[in-house]
């Protein structure tokens, strides 16, 4: 790029058509996808523009009684009037009721039996040379087409007709038999509005667009999506001594950290992993995470499958934090959790995440039976859902907080309010107060950059206030002031098996350090910064 001359910093002159870098379809600073609540940017000033004076000014009252750290959700939900919020509450309630035998579990008796009584003998292919050959072939042709496997198989059979090599389809069945890993299929709206799961299971038509669930001619589901239950995969990962020993990383690291803390007067000299963070250590301290448990990270993102065609597809994965950082982010250890077909964005993400989270919550409550092949021991493990990560817009749909243009737009739910322009509806977190600036609600004095502290304790008080909105007008107003759009589905996960809301939502360094900051600084240097 050309070196910016001094004058280039005068970015106040409007540029006719400022080139806004299109990084990819899911640019984090793109429009907020929370379309399910008709407004593109919930929590920004458009909310109050829609407001009709109703004189019903109220403030959230500090709730006395139950402890906010472990709130009684039923009590929280009881005054909810608006249907969108009630639906969100329903999903959370169903999730709280989760059990492996439950209505939404989707597992047959065989799969259930596998989860509760996994095989306790090592699996080996040593005495099955044909099977071994078949698997070698299958894995070697994994990235190629089915034809490659079939052709190679036919060639071998021509030379050695006595070999028993299964066909490709038989191989897929054998894979399920050996690993116990399958998928649960659920119907969804053809336009990706909702999935017919949880409280929506019995509907025959999409509540958003009215499309029927079944195809009127064939009677099949119009569109379906797959969820891979995590339980059997985790069991398989313990099913070999070498693989089982990978789980020891977290145990030995945790011991190492605790010893270090003891010898170093409670200070951590170097942060090397999630386990060095205070949130993890506190949960180890209070017994929520034991050495038998497994710590998981959830991550979701939308992907455009083809560059020039609407082909949105949302994918979520599980990362097993028990493995060492050198291994856990690698292809062979990252576990796909579910796929949400497009081509449009899912309007109600909760309904698509529900089957996967239901399975997780059920396992968290009941405990997952594991056979540790390394030491031949069967035990119950609880799955601790440590972090949920996503890029900016996807994170807003996960956490149920307002998007980045909201008055309280910080994705970590920090209590710093933004400011908006006289005619703009978007809030920006400028800490210094502009000169000659009077604006109702956001002309607070300068805030310090050097003393911001984090607190999450106001979340439940604010959520209670939001849920109790008597009408849409009040809801929009409260949404603006509270910075919450809806209760997040992760409220349904057992509180002792997660970091708690909103602490379990991480921020994403990748998008921040690359796209977001470059998109901020470079246009300023080049005098091409976008004007509202």
């Amino acid at each position: 790029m050309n070196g910016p001359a001094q004058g280039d910093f005068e970015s106040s002159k409007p540029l006719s058509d400022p080139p806004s870098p299109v990084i990819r379809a899911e640019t984090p600073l793109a429009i907020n996808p929370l379309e399910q609540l008709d407004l593109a940017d919930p929590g920004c000033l458009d909310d109050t523009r829609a407001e009709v004076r109703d004189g019903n000014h109220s403030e959230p009252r500090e709730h006395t009684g139950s402890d906010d750290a472990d709130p009684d959700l039923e009590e929280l939900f009881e005054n909810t009037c608006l249907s969108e919020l009630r639906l969100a509450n329903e999903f959370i309630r169903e999730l709280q009721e989760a059990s492996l035998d439950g209505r939404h579990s989707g597992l047959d008796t065989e799969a259930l039996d596998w989860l509760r009584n996994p095989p306790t003998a090592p699996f080996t292919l040593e005495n099955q040379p044909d099977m071994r050959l078949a698997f070698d072939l299958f894995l070697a042709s994994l990235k190629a087409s089915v034809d490659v496997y079939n052709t190679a198989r036919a060639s071998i059979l021509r030379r050695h007709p006595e070999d028993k090599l299964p066909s490709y389809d038989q191989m897929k069945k054998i894979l399920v038999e050996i690993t116990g890993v399958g998928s649960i299929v659920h119907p969804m709206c053809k336009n990706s509005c909702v999935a017919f799961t949880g409280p929506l299971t019995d509907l025959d038509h999409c509540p958003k667009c009215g499309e029927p669930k079944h195809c009127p001619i064939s009677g099949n589901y119009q569109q379906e999506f797959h969820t891979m239950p995590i339980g059997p995969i985790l069991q398989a990962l313990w099913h070999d001594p070498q693989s089982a020993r990978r789980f020891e990383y977290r145990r030995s690291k945790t011991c190492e950290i605790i010893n270090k803390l003891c010898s170093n007067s409670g200070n951590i000299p170097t942060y090397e992993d999630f386990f060095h963070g205070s949130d993890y250590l506190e949960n180890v301290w209070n017994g929520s995470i034991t050495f038998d448990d497994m710590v998981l990270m959830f991550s979701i993102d939308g992907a455009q499958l083809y560059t020039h065609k609407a082909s949105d597809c949302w994918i979520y994965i599980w990362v097993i934090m028990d493995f060492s950082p050198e291994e856990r982010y690698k292809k062979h250890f990252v576990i796909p959790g579910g796929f949400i077909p497009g081509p449009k964005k899912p309007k109600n993400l909760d309904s698509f995440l529900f089957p996967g989270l239901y399975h997780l919550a059920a396992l968290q409550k009941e405990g997952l039976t594991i056979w540790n092949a390394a030491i031949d021991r069967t035990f119950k493990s609880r799955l601790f859902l440590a972090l949920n990560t996503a890029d900016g817009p996807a994170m807003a749909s996960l956490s149920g907080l307002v998007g980045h243009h909201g008055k309280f737009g910080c994705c970590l739910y920090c209590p710093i309010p933004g400011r908006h322009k006289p005619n703009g509806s978007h809030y920006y977190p400028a800490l210094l107060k502009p000169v000659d600036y009077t604006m109702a609600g956001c002309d607070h004095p300068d805030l310090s950059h050097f003393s911001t502290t984090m607190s999450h304790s106001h979340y439940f008080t604010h959520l209670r206030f939001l849920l109790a909105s008597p009408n849409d007008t009040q809801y929009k107003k409260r949404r603006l002031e509270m910075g919450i759009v809806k209760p997040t589905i992760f409220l349904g996960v057992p509180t002792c098996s997660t970091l708690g809301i909103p602490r379990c939502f991480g921020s994403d360094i990748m998008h921040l350090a690359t796209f977001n900051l470059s998109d901020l600084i470079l246009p300023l240097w080049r005098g091409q910064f976008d004007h509202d």
Partner: protein
Amino acid sequence: MAVSAATPYLPGSFDRPPRNIAEKINSGYKAWEWLLYLYGLAPALLFGMLPEPYYSHFCKLVRAMRIIQQYHISSSDLILADGLLRSFAYEFEVLYYQRREDRIHFCRQSLHALLHLASEVTRIGPPICSSQWTMERTIGNLGEEIRQPSNPYANLSQRGLLRCQVNALIAMVPDLNPSRCDSDLPRGALDLTGGYVLLRAQDRYSRLMKETEATALKKYIQSHHSLTQFGKDWPLKIVRWARLRLPNGQVARSRWKEALKPINKIRIARNVKVCFWFS
């Protein structure tokens, strides 16, 4: 220009080198390119180009980000990064936004997020451990497996299920893993132990060191070891090797073979930082 001209000096193990930013800024500059550009090349390329105080201001961000994106962050570095990020955010408001009502939109959430970066490390560890790189990579390697454009979603779900099953199977029968053959050394390689492996090409015959080479080696050995006596077979006979695999998996090349190629055909990989750890 300068950005793409730097390509030959970035080793191949650094993945895609940043393309010319002046031409490509609008055509999908990738995250990795931004990373190398913003925090690697820009501080050098913009020196003398970006006037003060903007340059120094930018350098604060670079220093802090170089710390915060590490897998290992020491407490003292973290405190340093926290201070730098906060003062970067403060000075950003002073330098760019200047308390001007019409510039409030300069202060994006991405600027605010910097204030939390360091304290989040103490809460949930280094941010790289919970970054979206994994997710993006998974989308990439699942996406490229799609074989059926007529119904990509169903095909993708099938590939995802297959990934789960194969990962489970390989965990249960580790020696099925086809990529495990990587650990075998290529033909003619020499394992030096400790994670170092010499890789071919290799001189066919050994030859006596030149006078200058022998002096240089002697000086080096004397400065790093207490060894002062050299036997009477000094100067030694030597054999040149083209490449050395490092314990971190990267491959360093020697000047011997690298110098034979034109500069625009290679990605120089002979500048290696060696750290000695004494315990």
